[in-house]
């Protein structure tokens, strides 16, 4: 909520802030900075433990690289559709904003669906959450990422509803852009995870 006295000018166009960035956007950037360290901690834990398999399957025995590549591609494409949504919002084109937001949410949901499938497949192959250090750290890392994508999907769908009912205060384009920042961040984190977890052999 940026409706304090100083940001008052936001209703009438340019926000009156010291940096020129709106409070919400600066807040989102700073929050994402913090998220880097959250994933940094989780990724470090995984890197430390990926080779420690006291029981159950080894990483390279269960990873299905082609399948995960496809779902990664889907997630990366959702960044493209997110950009299209932001661009439509800047053009004040509500119809296309909503269209691309919905497509982004669907692509994200496809990725999460792929992750659910992958988790069940791994579980059937004998990798439970408590099986080994590898199992615990794998599910924790990718699970945290999956939760972030899911939260993103909820935000996208809420945004679609709010755009449709014309219930967004201040600049609509900026609100779409904020969710976009979060969404791109989650995608970039996945590029790191996909490379470190799946592509580099243990």
């Amino acid at each position, binding site marked *: 909520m940026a409706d304090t006295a100083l940001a008052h000018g936001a209703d009438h166009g340019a926000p009156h802030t010291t940096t020129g960035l709106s409070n919400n956007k600066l807040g989102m950037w700073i929050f994402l*900075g913090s998220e880097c360290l959250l994933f940094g901690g989780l990724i470090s834990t995984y890197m430390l433990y990926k080779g420690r398999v006291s029981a159950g399957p080894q990483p390279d025995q269960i990873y299905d690289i082609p399948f995960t590549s496809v779902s990664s591609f889907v997630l990366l494409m959702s960044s493209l559709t997110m950009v299209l949504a932001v661009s439509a919002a800047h053009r004040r084109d509500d119809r296309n904003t909503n269209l691309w937001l919905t497509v982004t949410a669907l692509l994200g949901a496809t990725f999460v669906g792929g992750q659910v499938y992958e988790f069940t497949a791994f579980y059937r192959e004998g990798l439970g959450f408590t099986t080994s250090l590898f199992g615990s750290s794998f599910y*924790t890392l990718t699970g945290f990422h999956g939760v972030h994508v899911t939260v993103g999907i909820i935000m996208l769908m809420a945004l679609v509803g709010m755009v449709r009912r014309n219930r967004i205060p201040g600049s609509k384009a900026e609100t779409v852009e904020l969710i976009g920042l979060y969404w791109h961040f989650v995608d970039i984190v996945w590029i790191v995870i996909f490379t470190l977890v799946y592509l580099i052999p243990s």
Partner: protein
Amino acid sequence: MAIIERPSAEIAVAGAAPSGVKPSEALGVFKRPAASTSWKDWLVTVDHKKLGIMYGVAAFFFFIVGGVEALLIRLQLAGPEGKILSADQYNQMFTMHATTMVFLFVMPMVSAFANYFVPLQIGARDVAFPRINAFGFWCWLFGGIFLNTSWFLGGAADGGWFMYAPNSSTLFSPSHGIDFWVLGLQITGIASLTGAINLIVTVLNMRAPGMKLMRMPIFTWMTLVVQFLLLFAMPVITVALFLLSFQRSFDATFFDVAAGADPLLWQHLCWIFGHPEVYILILPSFGIVSEIIPVFSKKPLFGYPIVAMSGAAIGFVGWGVWAHHMFASGLGPVSVAVFSMATMAIAVPTGVKIVNWIMTMWGGKLSFTVPMLFAIGLVVQFTIGGLSGVTHSVAPSDTQQTDTYYIVAHFHYVLFGGAIFGLFAGFYYWWPKIFRKQLSESLGKWNFWLMVIGMNMTFGPMHILGLQGQPRRMQVWTEARAGEGFFNIGFWNRIASLGSFILAVGVLLFIINIIYTHKSKKVAIAPLDPWDARSLEWMTANPPVEHNFDSIPTVNNLDEFFHRKYAEDPNTHEVRQVATAEEVLAELNAHPDEHIHMPSRSYWPILVSLSLPIICYGLIYNRLLMGVGAAFLLLTMFGWAMEPSTAPDDDFDPPAPGEGGGHTKELAPLG
């Protein structure tokens, strides 16, 4: 709740025309609460000053709780074979003493000062995200209460405040104490993270015109550095706490050594958080004394840019020294050498600050008021604690000192002698600003001297105890092994216990001082500017009005308030007073801003944060309760998002042409 459609008080103050008020459409239960003077207003407030006071009061309560825990520890150790606490109770006592003092006293007390004074010091009317600010306070409070309910539900956490795994796994710590600890700190962690984002955005984005970064008061500077430290340190401890709670609640294997786990994982994560954390605790107090020493020396702060930048340097280097907490864990010679050097290096910017404070006092017209005494107390005692800290950076020496009372002596000198003395300096200095009355100077001097004597009697002997080999966290010492003569640990333990009670009397005098000041009719209302201060927060009424400044000042100088009161005579180069504080304030208020929008009160911050302890109790006792808590969380978040952005009785500007009357449905999606 009845909503009376009328212009609110601040509009009347601001002189806005009541005809400009257009109450927004009421949205049933999603209405904003109206302003009121009852106690209920404190539950729904988003005013940074009220939240600051609430942080302060609640944190001081936890200070007393943590202090009683400390006194019990000292009673136990006052004689050989102490019988007051069992070994198990003793473990809980030192764990909760540290946790309470760090997470429930110093950090929130810093939040109290930062919330109250940062917007005032930069010339803002509130923080960037007022509802999130309120949410952070309630999260912290509920987290702290949740943590302390473990005392009544089968015992508190007993693993020491850094809670080394695997000792903290269910195998070695089967009671629920550590579950409460882990989950409670997760909740208070949310408060730290949201507070960090909020204050960083506030400082970067909401400065008054002309308030450049290098014109900000040092307290604001240190707050900014600390909030960046919190921003990056909190997620690391969050990961560690998640790993531990997954292990304890869902049988994950992170710290299961039989499965090949590395016990150093927890230590690294804990200290990557933990070392920046010690700067999080001390830097705000550095900021407070950097405000106080110039005022009572009648001189500008010596080397202002150096003080600001050395604080930032401490913030950076603070990330590269964490493993000096782990010299005894077998890191290997290269790591030990690197961290040893880095630790020596971080003493440099800290020493620079001490030199700056001394140079500020040098040649100044010193007045030894109570805030100044506490500030000087910090400078002296922190220097002692800092020097014993440098001895830790020497790894071979540190290996001898690890886990002895020497470490306890060191960190109490920097945290009690440093951080807490800084906070007390802040209490005395800013008391008239917040509560209109000045705390008694004579009682304050008793308060100060008893605390100095008590603090040095308690923690000074611990250097000797530690070097004699008394391990920390042992619940007894025996006469047979106490040693002879000057180094008899029995003697020094008794001195330390005696000192702790003198310290407690000192703190008690502070409480008596508060009661005396506010009950006694002899204590008059303090003048507007009792200390002849230098920075913007004193350019407001005592206490500041809800919107802080009737008109936002334009800043032309470092120490703006001072420069408005004093000017240099161009002929004689003599600095003399050109205006009183009252005149400065009257001039500033001569042309008040119109249509001041203050953020409206909200029910949702307290309700959303209330769901978090419910979820956590559910996680420990009953998964069904967890579901109820989660549902409550979702519902309240929905309420938060659907809340109209203004209260029905708020000031309202007419919508800009072309916006089509959408103003009645304005919602605040992000916070």
